């Protein structure tokens, strides 16, 4: 079973993308909705969305690094 690590890495990468996309999609939709309701608070909403967005991105990137490690260290 030579290609098994690649198989796992590819599936893992796909799942990371699904998860990150779902998360970012929720952020974007919620931010757009709340800005539409209260255009005055756009700055505050953007600021509040920014930080968790970067944390989410960090988790996704971390997972991708580990996928890369699986491939490189197989």
């Amino acid at each position, binding site marked *: 079973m030579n290609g098994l690590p690649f198989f796992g890495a590819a599936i893992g990468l796909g799942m990371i993308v699904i998860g990150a996309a779902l998360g970012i999609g929720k952020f974007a939709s919620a931010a757009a909705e709340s800005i539409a309701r209260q255009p005055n608070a756009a700055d505050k909403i953007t*600021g509040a969305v*920014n*930080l968790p967005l*970067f*944390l989410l*991105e*960090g*988790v996704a*990137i*971390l997972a*991708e*690094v580990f996928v*890369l*490690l699986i491939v*490189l*260290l197989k």
Partner: protein
Amino acid sequence: MFVQEAVQEHVATEAAEKFNAGKVIIEHVSNSGLDHPLLHVPRVLGIDFSVTKHVLMLWIVAAFVSIVVIVTVRRYLRQDRLMASGFMNALEALVEFIRDAIVLPNVGRKWVNTWTPLVLTFFVFIFCANAIGLIPIFEVLGVLDHFVLHTAEESLVKHVMHGGTTATANFNVTAALASITFGAIIVAGSKAHGFVKHWTNLVPHGLAWPLYILLIPIEVMGMFVKPFALTMRLAANMTGGHIAILAILSFVFLFTEMFGRAVAGVGVGLAVSVPLAVGISLLEIIVVLVQAYVFTLLTAVFIGMAINVHH
């Protein structure tokens, strides 16, 4: 660090019989190996201090940033009336943005002047290191060398060709930057609350004691996870974009090899690779800015968390 070693090992073990996209790409983003350093330094305490490509890039970035900023500020201060002009306007806007939009909301009015210099230094350094990685200086030098200069096999110009240009794509560099953040968090907490109080502030007060068994390990782990996440985020982001660009550009060579003629490769290059690579490069410009912003913002947030404890 561990990842870098793994990458280099992978490069070393990979036998190159034909055009090997993976090998070429990894060679273009990872640090140059210690077997052909730019400057030989004898081992000190068993550590090889030889200068590699990323160290050279760090020096270039540091020299560039210091010269540009010092010259601009000196010229501004020499005037009779302190009127910002030219590049000083941009610098002033940047400093103001970092202070008012990143540090002040997170750290608070009392400590803003203590921590703005650190955060500002982070931003300028990371931004310049990221941005210089996007400029193909060494590729241009390589083309010049190939067609005009014709330097010898072991010359400095040939040595400079090895390895990637983005110093922040190296996990060791970002780990060093994140350790400064790690230290800054502890210093900030200690300065605001006293050394012992900073550590007791890590967990909320007045809970039932079984909760502390759960909470203390989590908080201690969190202390190390914060700089670790900073390390990985910056380095992985800077590596990822470059790998994507190089992978798309390597289609040219893959298709040339597949069809056995250069026309196929050049056609694919013009039709697919170049437009896509230009698009990703544009995206990279945004990523360069955002990652510098994210690193500084998170540093400010973590320092602020140590100062303004919400428990």
